[in-house]
């Protein structure tokens, strides 16, 4: 059900503005309308004064600072419930933050070192075979270069250039280090270091640059030192992280302060939505009708007789926000409806219908006692485990609890337990349809289910169109309904289920229906009318997927059982379990998507009006993040 909305104007004396805004914020059941967008308010918008602008800037700065600090540690300090004095916060942050920021920076440096060292070790290891012993080279520098084997000729150029610079007082030791890399170690006098540096920079070679503490160390020692460092680094990082965490954990009030800042910033932001004269303010907003009395009471409590809540007329240009209210069992389906589009205000909320049909279709497709039980257990576990960590996943698992229930029920109807295993083991027989053999009745059944679902959709469309006095919608829905009924009668006569006398009225019904669909479309109707009839047939046949996916899943389960019965028993069990797991994964994903599609395309297409905007109350919502 969509909750009816009321539009209210909260009008009062300027000196009561602050407490009123705070009370409404706490209550969080009003969605503010910007007065400049509200034609029924003639007051000019209220501009924030200098103090407020200053306050907003200060609070934004503090919030950004706190966010940065709190993000440094994965665990949030336990919240300190007492109110924090925000005026002291800046001083406190300025005394503590530098230490934390310094620690954070050294953590980043350590992390960078940990990331780069393994690459240096690798490069040096590749070069090591070239220079078995390079000790006793006092007064000489070594530089290592690596280049692609295809460009090995660059070494010749380097040799020539060095020769020109140092007149032979140097050494290049080079060799293949692996299939497509050539390595070289260049030994040059230290006194010519600067010129050599510059020369190497100009050449087409890739110099191996080591962190400065390893630069003048022999390669083998450098590798050893680096490996020791690689062991030490994680320990150092953990120590730094612990110190950061300890400092932040000691400041539980920061979490509270952050929430307070967010709350206060929201309240200050609300000021821009208000209208005001020198002595009065007006605040315009949407309140769910059932909450109206509560809002009135709270405002009266803080207003001291100087603030009133007045009902405002809803004009045609207003678009009231949408708040869906359904029984707890249907609530998870609200998200699925909104996934397509939030319903338009004053239209029908299809959540309850979706709760009835979606799990039903899901169960009809999967239909297996054991799969249903496994899914039920999984859904219950997800619901328990993720209740706090991922509330939306927990909420969605309720959809699967219902789906699992129907899967078990249809499993009994089809007599399926892990495919045909129930039949093999304990002679389980279907109550009604054996999906492996009775394909024809199964197909027929899914078409009938589809027709019923679509007729329901058309009836709802008829009702919705008559409610908004939409003649075009009315004639289209009525025409579709007649055409569909006529088509079914024709099929009934042609397969010999109905006496042939029905043929004439059946054709007449289709014609009348088609004409109704064309009637108000103008000349285009001549094309769109027949197309829509074809579309209707397509819509009904689309429900064949219920049978098709079911059959596919049964055969896959059967394949699993057949494979499982080959070879030794233990291999058989593993193979069968793997195949059943695959089938279950497919069998959960695909019926979900298909059941959703049947709703979105075939069912909703007949009556649903989307395009609304969700109700976002002014208040505590943003506190969470």
């Amino acid at each position, binding site marked *: 059900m969509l909750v009816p909305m009321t539009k209210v104007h909260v009008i009062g004396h300027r000196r009561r503005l602050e407490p009123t805004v705070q009370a409404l914020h706490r209550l969080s059941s009003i969605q503010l309308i910007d007065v400049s967008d509200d034609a029924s308010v003639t007051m000019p918008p209220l501009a924030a004064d200098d103090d407020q602008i200053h306050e907003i800037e200060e609070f934004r700065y503090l919030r950004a600072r706190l966010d940065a600090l709190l993000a440094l540690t994965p665990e949030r300090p336990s919240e300190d419930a007492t109110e924090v004095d925000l005026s002291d916060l800046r001083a406190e942050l300025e005394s503590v933050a530098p230490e934390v920021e310094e620690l954070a920076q050294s953590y980043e440096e350590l992390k960078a070192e940990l990331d780069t060292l393994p690459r240096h070790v690798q490069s040096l290891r590749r070069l090591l075979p070239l220079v078995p012993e390079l000790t006793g080279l006092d007064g000489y520098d070594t530089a290592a270069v690596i280049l692609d084997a295809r460009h090995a000729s660059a070494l010749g150029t380097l040799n020539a250039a060095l020769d020109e610079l140092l007149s032979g007082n140097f050494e290049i030791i080079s060799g293949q280090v692996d299939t497509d890399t050539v390595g070289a170690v260049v030994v040059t006098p230290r006194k010519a270091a600067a010129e050599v540096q510059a020369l190497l920079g100009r050449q087409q070679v890739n110099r191996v640059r080591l962190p400065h503490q390893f630069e003048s160390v022999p390669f083998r020692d450098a590798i050893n030192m680096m490996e020791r460092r690689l062991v030490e680094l994680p320990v150092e990082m953990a120590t730094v992280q612990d110190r950061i965490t300890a400092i932040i954990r000691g400041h539980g009030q920061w979490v509270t302060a952050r929430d307070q800042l967010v709350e206060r910033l929201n309240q200050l932001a609300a000021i821009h939505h208000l209208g005001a004269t020198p002595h009065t303010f007006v605040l315009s907003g949407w309140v769910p009708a059932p909450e109206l009395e509560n809002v009135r009471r709270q405002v009266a409590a803080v207003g001291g007789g100087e603030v009133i809540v007045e009902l405002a007329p809803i004009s045609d240009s207003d678009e009231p926000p949408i708040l869906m209210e359904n029984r707890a069992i249907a609530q998870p389906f609200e998200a699925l409806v909104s996934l397509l589009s939030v319903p338009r205000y004053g239209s029908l909320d299809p959540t309850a219908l979706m709760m009835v049909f979606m799990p039903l279709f899901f169960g009809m497709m999967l239909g297996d006692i054991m799969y249903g039980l496994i899914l039920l257990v999984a859904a219950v576990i997800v619901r328990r485990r993720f209740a706090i960590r991922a509330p939306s996943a927990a909420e969605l698992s309720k959809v699967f609890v219902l789906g699992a229930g129907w899967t078990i029920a249809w499993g009994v109807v089809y007599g399926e337990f892990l495919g045909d295993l129930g039949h093999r083991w304990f002679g389980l027989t279907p109550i009604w349809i054996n999906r492996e053999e009775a*394909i*024809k009745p199964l197909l027929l059944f899914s078409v009938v289910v589809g027709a019923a679902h679509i007729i329901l959709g058309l009836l709802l469309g008829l009702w919705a169109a008559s409610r908004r006095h939409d003649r075009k919608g009315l004639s289209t829905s009525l025409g579709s309904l007649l055409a569909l009924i006529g088509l079914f009668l024709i099929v009934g006569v042609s397969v010999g289920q109905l006496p042939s006398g029905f043929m004439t009225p059946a054709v007449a019904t289709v014609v009348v229906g088609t004409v109704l669909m064309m009637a108000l479309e103008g000349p285009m109707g001549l094309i769109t009318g027949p197309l829509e009839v074809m579309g209707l047939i397509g819509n009904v046949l689309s429900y064949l997927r219920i049978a098709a996916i079911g059959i596919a899943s049964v055969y896959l389960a059967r394949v699993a059982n057949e494979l499982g019965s080959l070879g030794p028993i233990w291999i058989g069990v593993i193979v069968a379990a793997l195949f059943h797991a695959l089938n279950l994964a497919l069998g959960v994903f695909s019926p979900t998507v298909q059941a959703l599609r049947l709703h979105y395309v075939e069912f909703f297409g007949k009556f649903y009006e989307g395009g609304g905007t969700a109700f976002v109350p002014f208040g505590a919502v943003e506190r969470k993040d």
Partner: protein
Amino acid sequence: MELGLLAVGAGLAIGLAALATGYAQARIGSAGIGALAEKPELTGRVILLIAIPETLVILGFAVAAMIILLLGG
């Protein structure tokens, strides 16, 4: 012989329809993912658009089932 031809016909009916669906879904899917990268709130609409061509393969399935069940006896 005739049964074999019926089977080939049924296979073609669903196979070609599946190819057509796959082709349509590939194009809609890539465009849809592109749209989602910019506007995640379109998820529902994109699922819907991707699902629409599936009607083709379902119709192919209907024809294949009719060939086998009605003509194949």
